[in-house]
């Protein structure tokens, strides 16, 4: 708790949380939402392809997905840390918040084996093995759960 109080009292944390400026909490939260849209959306497009939508597109064409994931994940980790610091004593003790973080980590964990699978696919490869299809289903479910948990924080956590 001492650490959370210290984190929340840093001038920067206070600025994010308290400042009436549009560049503080509102912009950080908006960037977090935009990052979410790109991150989850890019993963879902790949998942749809693996499950048979647009099956004429070779798997190797989807390399851009991992660049989009890397950029948006970076944006969301940074903005997420800022939002956490602004209300560290609220988030740091809230069970729903930890469930959300666990779901985000689980979702991101499905990206790594899929990345290896896509990067190692043959040029022009169209077939998808059943392990990749299962991972795609896991990815869709995990990201949906992560968004649901994140969105419900506003209703489940007192003072959120």
């Amino acid at each position, binding site marked *: 708790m001492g650490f959370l109080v210290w984190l929340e009292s840093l001038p920067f944390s206070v600025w994010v949380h308290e400042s009436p400026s549009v560049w503080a909490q509102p912009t950080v939260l908006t960037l977090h939402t935009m990052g979410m*849209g790109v991150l989850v*959306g890019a993963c879902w*497009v790949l998942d749809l392809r693996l499950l048979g939508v647009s099956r004429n*597109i070779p798997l190797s064409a989807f390399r851009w997905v991992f660049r989009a994931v890397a950029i948006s994940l970076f944006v969301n980790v940074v903005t997420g840390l800022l939002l956490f610091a602004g209300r560290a004593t609220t988030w740091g003790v809230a069970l729903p918040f930890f469930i959300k973080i666990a779901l985000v980590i689980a979702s991101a964990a499905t990206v790594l084996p899929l990345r290896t699978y896509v990067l190692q696919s043959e040029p022009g490869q169209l077939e998808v093995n059943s392990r990749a299809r299962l991972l795609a289903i896991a990815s869709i479910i995990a990201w949906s759960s992560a*968004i649901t948990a994140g*969105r*419900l924080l506003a209703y489940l956590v007192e003072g959120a």
Partner: protein
Amino acid sequence: MPPPITSVNIAHLHLLLNHIPTVGAVVALGLLLVAYIRRDEPLKLVGLEVLFMIALLTLPAYMSGAAAFQDLRNQPGISEDAMRIHQDAALAGFTVVEFAGFIAWVALWQSRRRSGRPARGLVAASTLLLAVSLVIMSRAATLGGDIRHPEIRAAAGGAAEPAGDPERFVATQISHFMVDSPWGWPASETIHFLGLSLSFGVLLAVNLRILGVMEQVPFADLHRLLPWGMLGFGANLITGMLFFVGQPKQYIGSTPFYWKVVFLMIAGANFLYLTVFRQAWSGDRNSHWHANGFDKAMAILSMFAWLVVLYGGRMLPFIGHAF
């Protein structure tokens, strides 16, 4: 920064926009009927495109009406009941015309893939729904005229509607559900965020292809993804309308909401362009298509417009007064 459209002239904006669903629907229906009589397939596509745009513009038409309602409800000589009756009819018409626009979009998407021949069933279904919406919209327009034109009521010889319980209106019932139910609002927010992610992902893939990523992939294969983007958009239109009908006062007169709707119109028109534009479809499947400058500009506009739509929504609690 004051909202560009303030409550002073919002009623005028509604008087301007409210002709779109009626006059526009007559034009779209006329085009489709002429196309049927002449067996003119390209003209059917034009009719469907006009129908899609009418469905899009009916959104601000409805919303400006809700704003005018808040503005006028306490003025003497104006019946709140008459406005509520009009609003319910407009909401019904809105719902039907959105379905018509959705089916028209599916027909346009499919006809682009079949090099110009829309599926008969889809065209017939959207024409039929458009005709139904025109009937409902005409009734809504007549009821709307009753609000401010007592001479119409007098000429019709009708007695004034008895003031009734506001609970009998659908808009009121939706509002109660959204506000009173413990899960209505949170569930809708969750679906809204899932929908936006799905739309963002699909549009990112399609627009990146136009901008030169995945150039070895024929555009048709990315075009195949568009219905998934439309699914996300449809989920967000429904949940977004639940928010708006649930708590209209949060959105009316809000600057970020105004810009959200303006850019939603731009983004929607752009989405129609991405669905039907021809350049990417000429040549055989194996030749790589390079987008020209205009199409690249449209791809950038698409991503920019959707980001503004998201920005406007996310800023509602901060610049506006929504929760």
